[in-house]
């Protein structure tokens, strides 16, 4: 009761101070608060829309990228097979061991642990680690088992990578044809080089979300693009024959004490290369050791063919109708040519030979006399028809087309020496190819070494076939075959080329070799050459050989015989060629013969 009168007095006390009491309006306060909250909500909501709606996908992608890992799936390089499907080169899985030098606390201990597994010395490993940086290869192309053993050591800073290794199971056999690859599997020589694009596959990739420990998160995004392996290349080579050829070359190397021997085997009917090899070659285990030996001498190195080239002179004369094998001519043992004299390999009184006799006895003088009747333009035409001066187009890198200058540029002496194979040069492959034309009844099929390319799906990819062309008429080819068979008769220059049971035809040659140091032929030594085919009555195989001969004391008919007969008889046996049912005919060498 007493308090009641004091109550009204309170406002009365404050009022005099001039500040009118204004009760806050709760609604207004609420409205303000609501507005503030709403503004905040709009800001938060806007930000939400911005983050989730507008930028959302970007952040989601970025987050996924953090988890996503992409692994390249390596595509296996295609294999190289021989004609029977034996692998000459193929790819296997291998591993590379690398080090992260920054993570290796004790290089010494690491090296000591790793070295015995890698077959290296600890010092070598330490040297590699000492290079520094974050990545250095310790060893490559390792067997996966060895890599696993290294990883089992659980050494910090040592890691493993998948890679591929090229295997050459036949080792040195056909190494020059097959070639080799570098450490990144890029072809550097041979078919590995010329067919690199075909052999190389298309890598695939695996994209997956990675969990905490690097394992894929199950049922999460995964996409896998399979790698497409490279195509397989099948060669026309026969691995076993190739081995025989290389063995024959090795034997010739040993027996003759010379280093340079080249040999090519062709199928007469298809022009396919069945074997080709030359020495010196590179060491298949260590191809880079002598850089100048990385090629394939049978397609890259040229030789002067010598008397083997006489065949073309006779082909021109026969095909032009100037002679028959019976045409007689009296031949002295020497003949003056511009600036020089040519002579036969042996002195003799003038002989009246038949054309066959001139070829089979390999008379230089007789050949030049014949070439003069043919004329340089005609001879030039036939040389080029037989493919000289132009690369054959075989599917191998660095092929030479030989050296045959255009006819108007022939020097006076060249006009007279080219007919018997000096002043012109060719590869041994070209030499084999021109005899293939004779053996194939006058149709030259340019030599090829790729039988087929098999795609990753197993389908055979078409290869443009070599275009066969007629070089001489079938009659001329038959006459040439007859005359070339006379070479291997007892009176000819190549009786050692005969093979029991089969008739053999061919032409021997001994060519002066230009001195590699320059200054003409003096001191250059000789090439002993032979090109022939068998069976002469139904030719199946052509072999061309050239063997370096330091002193020229023995001609190609003797030196090349072991290599020719061993390889040819292997070929005939291995392919089941029936023996010639007939004997070689009687040959009329001179006018005096019946």
């Amino acid at each position, binding site marked *: 009761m007493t308090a009641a009168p004091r109550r009204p007095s309170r406002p009365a006390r404050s009022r005099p101070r001039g500040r009118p009491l204004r009760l806050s309006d709760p609604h207004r306060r609420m409205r303000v608060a609501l507005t503030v909250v709403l503004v905040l909500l709009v800001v938060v909501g806007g930000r939400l829309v911005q983050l989730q709606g507008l930028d959302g996908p970007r952040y989601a992608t970025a987050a996924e990228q953090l988890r996503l890992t992409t692994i390249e799936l390596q595509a296996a390089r295609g294999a190289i097979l021989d004609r029977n499907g034996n692998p000459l080169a193929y790819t296997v*899985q291998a591993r590379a061991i690398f080090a992260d030098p920054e993570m290796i606390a004790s290089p010494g201990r690491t090296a000591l642990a790793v070295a015995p597994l890698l077959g290296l010395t600890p010092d070598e490993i330490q040297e590699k680690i000492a290079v520094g940086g974050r990545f250095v290869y310790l060893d490559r192309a390792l067997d996966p088992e060895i890599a696993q053993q290294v990883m089992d050591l659980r050494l910090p800073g040592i890691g493993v990578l998948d890679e591929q290794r090229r*295997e050459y199971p036949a080792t040195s056999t056909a190494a020059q044809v097959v070639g080799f690859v570098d450490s990144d599997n890029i072809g550097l020589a041979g078919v590995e080089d010329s067919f690199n694009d075909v052999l190389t596959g298309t890598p695939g990739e695996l994209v997956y979300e990675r969990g905490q420990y690097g394992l894929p998160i*199950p049922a999460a995004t995964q996409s896998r693009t399979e790698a497409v392996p490279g195509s397989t290349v099948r060669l026309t080579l026969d*691995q076993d024959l190739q081995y025989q050829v290389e*063995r024959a070359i090795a034997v010739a190397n040993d027996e003759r004490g010379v280093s340079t021997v080249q040999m090519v085997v062709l199928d007469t009917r298809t022009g396919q290369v069945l074997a080709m090899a030359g020495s010196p070659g590179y060491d298949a285990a260590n191809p880079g050791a002598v850089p100048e030996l990385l090629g394939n001498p049978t397609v890259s190195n040229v030789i002067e063919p010598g008397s083997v080239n006489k065949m073309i002179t006779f082909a021109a004369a026969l095909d032009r109708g100037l002679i028959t094998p019976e045409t007689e001519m009296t031949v002295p043992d020497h003949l003056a040519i511009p600036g020089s004299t040519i002579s036969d390999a042996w002195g003799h009184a003038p002989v009246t030979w038949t054309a066959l006799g001139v070829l089979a006895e390999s008379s230089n003088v007789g050949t030049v006399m014949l070439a003069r009747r043919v004329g340089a333009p005609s001879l030039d035409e036939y040389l080029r028809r037989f493919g000289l001066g132009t690369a054959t187009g075989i599917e191998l890198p660095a092929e030479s087309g030989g050296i045959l200058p255009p006819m108007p540029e022939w020097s006076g002496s060249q006009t007279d020496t080219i007919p018997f194979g000096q002043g012109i040069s060719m590869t041994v492959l070209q030499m084999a190819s021109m005899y293939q034309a004779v053996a194939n009844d006058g149709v030259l099929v340019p030599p090829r070494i790729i039988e087929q390319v098999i795609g990753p799906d197993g389908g055979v990819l078409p290869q443009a076939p070599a275009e066969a062309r007629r070089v001489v008429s079938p009659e001329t080819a038959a006459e040439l075959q007859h005359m070339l068979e006379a070479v291997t008769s007892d009176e000819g220059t190549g009786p050692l080329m005969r093979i029991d*049971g089969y008739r053999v035809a061919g032409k021997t040659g001994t060519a002066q070799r230009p001195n590699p140091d320059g200054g003409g032929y003096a001191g250059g030594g000789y090439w002993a050459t032979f090109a022939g085919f068998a069976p002469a009555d139904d030719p199946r195989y052509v072999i061309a050989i050239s063997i370096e001969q330091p002193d020229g004391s023995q001609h190609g008919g003797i030196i090349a015989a072991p290599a020719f007969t061993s390889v040819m008889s292997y070929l005939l*046996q291995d392919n089941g060629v029936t*023996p010639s049912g007939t004997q070689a005919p009687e040959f009329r060498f001179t006018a005096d013969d019946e």
Partner: protein
Amino acid sequence: MSAIPAPSTLPAPRTAAPGTRRRTSTVGGRSRVGSGPRSTRTLTLTVAPAATPLAARRAPFVAVVLLLVGLGLVTLLVLNTAIAADSFTRRALSQDIDQLQLREQQLQLEVAAAQAPTALARAAAGQGMIPAGQPGFLVIHPDGTTEIVGGATPAARPASRSAPPRQPQPPAPPPGGAQGDPPPGGQQPADPADPADPADPAAPGGTG
């Protein structure tokens, strides 16, 4: 509020109960207002059953939901575990495949290396084999006579006759009585222990 209750309000629940119901029903449809008096007539009063508490009424529903949630969780857990277990199995199996592929690769390597001509030649030489020479061909003429084409020459015995270690394994012919006899069946290859002259013209038609 005043603490004095309105006297009329107390009995209201009892008497007004039907009225309330009626009123509420009118809310729903105006048309029933007119029929009000009629419904009052027919309305019978019953004792309302003891109201079941809300919680008790919802209990089965909650139980079902809980059960479903529980089942779902368990299923999810099982599925998840299964997926994880599968992924482990898959990983183990793919490791097995990798191992087997590597093994296959290794074996293929060995086969390819052993098939290579150089390896074959070496292996053959190790067995004491030598390259065959030119074979002879036997031509049988229609009249029954035969002719030998080509010279079948026995292959030259290799210079070094290092007896290969595997050769002595086939039992040598018994010393007694086998001296002049050819080995039965003639299957035995040239016995390295046999000092027979390699030039012995065992081959048919050795015309050289």
